[in-house]
C-alpha cells in the first residue's frame, strides 16, 4: 500500500475514548477553555465552555509583545481554569496559543511564567498547524455527514488574527493560505487609520484569490460550482440568526438558505450589525467579527457564485480536542497525508513540474523508507516529510534549471504548507536542496545551524530522495513498480520490465554515495 492509497490515518490499536480532556485556547481577544469527552467513534461532547476576555491581540498586533498587565491577567485566568480542571480530575490539559501570542516577541516569557506559576505547558501553534487541525476536524465532520466525497468547496476561516482561505476539490485540499485579515487586527489597524471596515475588501482583492484558485484548478465556467463552507464565530452567529436557534455546536453542520443569507448580509452590510448583535445577545468582540465576517462572506459568495452555504460549528478548541483524540489513537499514518500530497501536486503543477516524475520519486522514496524504517531511526512523520519532498523537489526548475535544487529549497522554505511545522518544512526544504549536487557542507549555513538530530534527519531523507530521484532519472517511471530487497549490506532495486536501466544505474552511482554513508548500505540496480 503506497502513500497515494493510504489516504486516511490507519489505526494501529482499537479506538479508545477520551474520558475527559481539556483544551485551553489563548486567542487574540479571549482565553477559552473547553472540557469534553470524545467517544470511541470520535464524537466530541463538550461538557463545559469557558471564556474570559483578554485582548492580547491588541497588545501584540500593535506593539509586537504581550504587555505585563495582560500577562498578569492571563496567569490569573489560567489559575482559575486550573481550579476548574480539578472538578473533572484533569491534570494535564492541552494549552495552545494562536495568532496573538504566536506573533508576540516575548512569547517565551509568557510560556515560562505559565509553566512556573500555573504548571501548564504552553504549545504555541503555528498558523499552518492551526489550520491543519481545524481542517482535519472539519473533514471528519464532513465525512460523518456524507459530504466529503468529491467535495468542491471554498472554506474561509475568519479568526481574530487571521483569515485562512482553503480550497478543496474532489475532497482534497488544493490551496490554503493565511491572510493577515483577522477581525481584531483589521479593526485595530483600520480603526487607527480611520478606515471603514469595507476597506477590508481592497485588502482581500489584493490577495487575488480568484486567480490563485484558478491556478489550483477552479474553473470559472464549470457547472460544478463550489460550496461555501464557513467556520468561525461570525459564521456561527449568522447561522444562529438565520435559523432562529442557538449557533451550531461542535458536531453540527448547518445548511443556510442562500437567499436568506443574502438578505441577512444586505442587512449587516447596511450597518445593522449592532442591532442584530443585540438580538443575538453577543459580545462586542463577536460583533466586530460579525461585521467583518459579513464582508468576507459577501465577497466569497459574489466572487465564486457558490452553490450552497454550509456553516460548521467547529471551533479551534473542538478541533484541538479532536486532534488530541487522534494523537491518543496512535495512528499508523498521518491523516493529513492525502491532503498534503494534493497540495504538493497543485504546487508542482503551478511551478510546471513533471507530475509523473514527482510522483515516481515520492513513491520510490516511500518504498525505500518502508524498507528501512524497522532497522533505522527516523524523525517523526518521516513518511509525510518524504512525500512532500518527493513531490516538491523539482519546483525550483520554475526559477532556473541550473541549481534548481537550491531554488526548490528556497520556495519550500517560504511557502505556506499546512500539515507541516516550520521545523518540518525546513527539513523538507533541505531534503529537496540536497536531492542532487553537493551533499551538506560546512559552508552551508542553513544546514550547519540546525540542531544535531535535525541534521541527521535531513541527511537520511536527502539520501533516500537522491536514490529515488536517481531511479527515475529518465522521467519514464521504469522503477515505478520496482521491488526492493535487502541482502546483507546491499539494497537491490529490481525493475519490473526488462529494459535498459543503464542511465539509472549511472545516476545512482553518482547520487548514491550519501545513502551508503548514512545507512551503510550499498545500492544495486538489476
Amino acid at each position, binding site marked *: 500500500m503506497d502513500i497515494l492509497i493510504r489516504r486516511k490515518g490507519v489505526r494501529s490499536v482499537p479506538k479508545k*475514548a477520551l*474520558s*475527559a480532556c481539556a483544551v485551553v485556547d489563548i486567542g487574540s481577544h479571549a482565553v477559552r477553555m473547553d472540557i469534553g*469527552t470524545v467517544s470511541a467513534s470520535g464524537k466530541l*461532547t*463538550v*461538557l*463545559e*465552555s*469557558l*471564556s*474570559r*476576555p483578554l485582548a492580547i491581540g491588541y497588545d501584540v498586533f500593535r506593539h509586537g509583545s504581550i504587555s505585563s498587565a495582560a500577562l498578569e491577567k492571563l496567569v490569573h485566568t489560567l489559575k*482559575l*481554569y486550573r*481550579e*476548574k480542571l*480539578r*472538578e*473533572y*480530575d484533569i491534570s494535564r490539559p492541552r494549552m495552545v496559543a494562536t495568532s496573538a501570542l504566536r506573533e508576540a516577541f516575548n512569547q517565551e516569557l509568557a510560556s515560562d511564567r505559565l509553566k512556573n506559576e500555573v504548571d501548564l505547558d504552553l504549545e504555541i501553534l503555528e498558523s499552518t498547524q492551526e489550520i491543519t487541525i481545524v481542517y482535519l476536524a472539519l473533514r471528519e465532520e464532513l465525512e460523518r455527514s456524507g459530504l466529503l466525497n468529491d467535495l468542491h468547496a471554498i472554506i474561509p476561516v475568519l479568526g481574530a488574527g487571521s483569515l485562512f482561505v482553503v480550497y478543496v476539490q474532489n475532497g482534497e485540499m488544493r490551496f490554503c493560505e493565511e491572510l493577515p485579515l483577522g477581525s481584531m487586527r483589521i479593526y485595530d489597524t483600520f480603526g487607527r487609520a480611520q478606515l471603514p471596515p469595507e476597506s477590508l475588501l481592497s485588502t482581500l482583492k489584493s490577495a487575488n484569490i480568484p486567480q490563485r484558485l484558478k491556478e489550483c484548478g477552479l474553473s470559472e465556467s464549470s457547472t460544478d460550482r463550489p460550496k461555501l463552507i464557513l467556520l468561525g464565530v461570525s459564521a456561527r452567529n449568522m447561522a*444562529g440568526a438565520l435559523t432562529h436557534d*442557538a*449557533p451550531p*455546536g461542535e458536531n453540527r453542520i448547518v445548511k443556510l438558505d442562500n437567499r436568506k443569507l443574502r438578505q441577512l448580509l444586505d442587512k449587516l452590510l447596511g450597518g445593522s450589525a449592532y442591532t442584530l448583535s443585540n*438580538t443575538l*445577545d*453577543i*459580545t462586542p468582540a*463577536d460583533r466586530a467579527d460579525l461585521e467583518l465576517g459579513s464582508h468576507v462572506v459577501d465577497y466569497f459568495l459574489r466572487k465564486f457564485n457558490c452553490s450552497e452555504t454550509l456553516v460548521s460549528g467547529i471551533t479551534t478548541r473542538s478541533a484541538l480536542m479532536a486532534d488530541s483524540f487522534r494523537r491518543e489513537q496512535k495512528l499508523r499514518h498521518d491523516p493529513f497525508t492525502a491532503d498534503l500530497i494534493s497540495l504538493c501536486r497543485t504546487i508542482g503543477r503551478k511551478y510546471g513540474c513533471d507530475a509523473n516524475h514527482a510522483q515516481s520519486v515520492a513513491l520510490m522514496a516511500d518504498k525505500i523508507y518502508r524498507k528501512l524504517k524497522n532497522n533505522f531511526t527516523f524523525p517523526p512523520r518521516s513518511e509525510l516529510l518524504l512525500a512532500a519532498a518527493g513531490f516538491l523537489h523539482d519546483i525550483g526548475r520554475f526559477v532556473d534549471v541550473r541549481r534548481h535544487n537550491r531554488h526548490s529549497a528556497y520556495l519550500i522554505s517560504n511557502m505556506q504548507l499546512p500539515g507541516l511545522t516550520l521545523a518540518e518544512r525546513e527539513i523538507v526544504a533541505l531534503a529537496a536542496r540536497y536531492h542532487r549536487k553537493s551533499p551538506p557542507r560546512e559552508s552551508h549555513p542553513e544546514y550547519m545551524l540546525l540542531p544535531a538530530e535535525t541534521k541527521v534527519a535531513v541527511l537520511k531523507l536527502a539520501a533516500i530522495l537522491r536514490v529515488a530521484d536517481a531511479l527515475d532519472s529518465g522521467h519514464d517511471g521504469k522503477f515505478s513498480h520496482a521491488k526492493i530487497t535487502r541482502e546483507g549490506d546491499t539494497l537491490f532495486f529490481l525493475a519490473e520490465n526488462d529494459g535498459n536501466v543503464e542511465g539509472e544505474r549511472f545516476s545512482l552511482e553518482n547520487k548514491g554515495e550519501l545513502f551508503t554513508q548514512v545507512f551503510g548500505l550499498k545500492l544495486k540496480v538489476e
Partner: protein
Amino acid sequence: MPSRRISYNRRLFFSRDLSWLDFNRRVLDEAAFERNPLLERLKFIAITSGNLDEFFMVRVAELNRLAHSGNEADPSGLRPSEQLVQIREKVKRLTRMQGQILDDLLAQLAEKGFMIAHIEELSREERTLSKGIFRNRILPVLTPMAVDAAHPFPLLNSGAIEIALWFEPEKGKSCRAFVEVPELLPRFINIASPVPGGKKFILLEELILDNLETLFPGGRILEKFPFRITRDMDLDFDDFDSVNLIQSIGDRLRERRQRDAIRLETPSGISGKLFKWLKKSLRIEDEFCYKDRTMLHCRQLFDLISQITASSLLEKEWTPAAPAELAGFPTVFDAIKAKEEIFLAFPFQSFSPIVRLLEEAADDPDVLAIKQTLYRVSGNSPVVKALQHAAENGKQVTVVLELKARFDEYNNITWARKLDRSGAHVVYGIAGLKVHSKMLMIVRREGERLNRYIHLGTGNYNDKTALQYTDCGILSCDPTLCGDVANLFNVLTGISTPGIPLALTSAAPFNLRTKFEALVKKEIEHVNSGRPGRIIAKMNSLSDEKMIRLLHLAADAGVEIDLIVRGICCYRPLPEQENIRIYSIVDRFLEHSRIYYFGNGGDGEYYLSSADWMTRNLDHRVELLFPVQSEKTKDHLRKLLEFQLDDSYKRRKLTSSGVYIHSKDSDPEKRSQYRSWCYFRELARQELLGSESLLKRNPPKSDQQVTP
C-alpha cells in the same frame, strides 16, 4: 401593530403596590373564610400581618424615597405620592378588617377553651400568678431606657413592640423612657387552664405594662402605651464591592438599624403628649401613624398557634408523597440515569430526594464535584450539612450563595462562613445582581465517562419552605441541559464571562427577556397565520411593563391566555379582552412555582423558571428558564395547570376593575392544591402497588383541553 389604546397607561396597568395590597387582602380573605379550620384562619392573620410589615419595610420605604426624588408616575399613571395616599387608605381598611376577623376568631377560640384575657379580666389568683411570672421570668431580661439630658433618644428596633412611658419621680424632673418587649420571650403567656385541655393567655406587653412600677419605683407613671415602629429596611446592594461583599453586607445590616422609621403603630385612642413627643422624636408624619383597634404585631400569632395543641382546629396534614419515579432504585443517580428526567413537585412530593442526592454525592467516591446555588436556606439545613460533608470528603464543592436574599442576610453569612471552613468554595455571585436561579449540579465519573446530574427548580433549596411553598423542578442528566447549567455556573463563579451560548435554557439578565418575548410573539404569529395561539403562565407576580404591553398585544391579537398570578398583577384585563383570564390562588400552601406553557401551534412547550415576569427578575437578577423535555413531566405539568384552572374553591378571577372575585359555584372537590396532592399520592401508591401508572390508565388531555 400596537393598538392605539396602548398609550393609555391607566387602562392597561394596575399599580404594583396597590396590587400587592390586594394580594394581602386575598390572604386575609382566607382568614375570613369560614370553611377553613380555626387555627388555619389565625395563621392567615399572622401571614397578612407579616406581609404588611415587609411591605412597609421595603415598598413603602422605596415609594417614600421616590416621592421625594422626582415623584415620577408608574405605568399605571400614579405618582409615588399618590400611591402612598391610596396605600394608606387600603392599609387602614385592611387592618380594620383584620381586627374584626381577629376578634371573631379569638371569640371562637375562647369557645373552644383557648382565650386571650386582658390583665383586668384575670382573677385575683391569676393576677398574683402573673406577677410571679413577671418577677421570675420577665423582669430579669428587661432593660428600661430613659431619655433625658444624659441619655439621648435610644435606637429602637424595627418590628419589636416597645413600651413608651412618661415617668415622674418623687424628686427631680419627669422623663420619658422605653422598655422593649423582648422577642425572645413568648408573646402569649399561658396563665391558666379555664377548662380541661384549654388555656388562658395574657399578652406579654400587657403583663409588662401592669408591672411597670417594679421597673420605675418611687414615682408616678403619667402616661404609658405600647407601640411598634417599622423602619426602612431595603438595602441597595448595587454599589457593593463584590470582593468584600460579606463585610459590606455585615456593615450595611448594622446600619439598617438606624434607618428612618416608616410606620408607627399604636393601639387606638393614643393621642396624648407622650405620643406627640414620640412622633416628633421619630420624625414621623401623621400619614405614617396607624392606630389599630387590634393587637400589635399579629405575626406573633404563630406563637399562639404553636401553644394550642388541638389538631381538630388545624387542617389535616398532607404528608408529601414519595416520588414514584425514584421507587425501586438504589440511588437517586440510578433513577435519574434510568428515567433521564424526573419531575418533583413540592410540597405534594417530598423534598428528601434532593437531600438524598446530596448525601449520596457526598459519600460517593466517584463524585468529583458538586455545585449549587443557595438563596434562602433553613436553619440547620440538611442541604448545607450535606455540602459541608462533601467538601470534607474532598469533593470540589462550589456554592453560589446569595447573601443579599432580603431579611435572610445574617442567616446566609453564617452559612457562608461554615461552608467556607469545611473547604467548600463559596462564591457570592455577581456584583449588583442577586442570584435567584435554583440549580444543583453533580459531576460523577462513571467508568470512562464523566456524567453530570442536575436539579433545576423554581424554589429555594430549603427543606422547611419545601413543606409550605408549591415549587417544582426536574432532576436530569441530559448532556445539553447539563452543559448549559455548567456554563451558567462558570459565569456565576466568575470563571467565565457571559457570552457562551446557552443551548436549551435562557438566563437573566442575559437573554431571558428576549426569550420570553420571542415565545409570546410566536403565539401572536400563530394567531396571525390562522393557527390557535395559547399561553398559560403561572407565576408569583406580573409587573414588568414591557411584558404586560406584549401580553396586551397578544390578547388583542386573539391569543388564548390564562395567567395564574398569585401576588402582584399589574395587567389590567380590558372588558373586551375575553380571551385573557387572570386568576390568583391563595391556599394553605404558598403558590410559588413558575410554569410557562406556550401552545406553539399545537406542539406545546413547557418551561419552568425561577423568574416571574417582573423587571427585577428579567433584568436585575440571575434567573433561569429551562424547558421540560420528557413527555411524562409535561403530563404532570399539564395536570397541575389543569387543576389550577379548574379550581372553583380557592381561585379568584381578576376583573378589569381590579377586584378579585370568587367562583360562583365554589366546589371543595375542585380545590387545586388538594387535587395536586391526591394526584402525586396516587402516583406513589400506584408505584407501590406495582400496577399500571395512573397516567397510563387516565391518559392526559390534549393541550387544547387544558383550556377551561
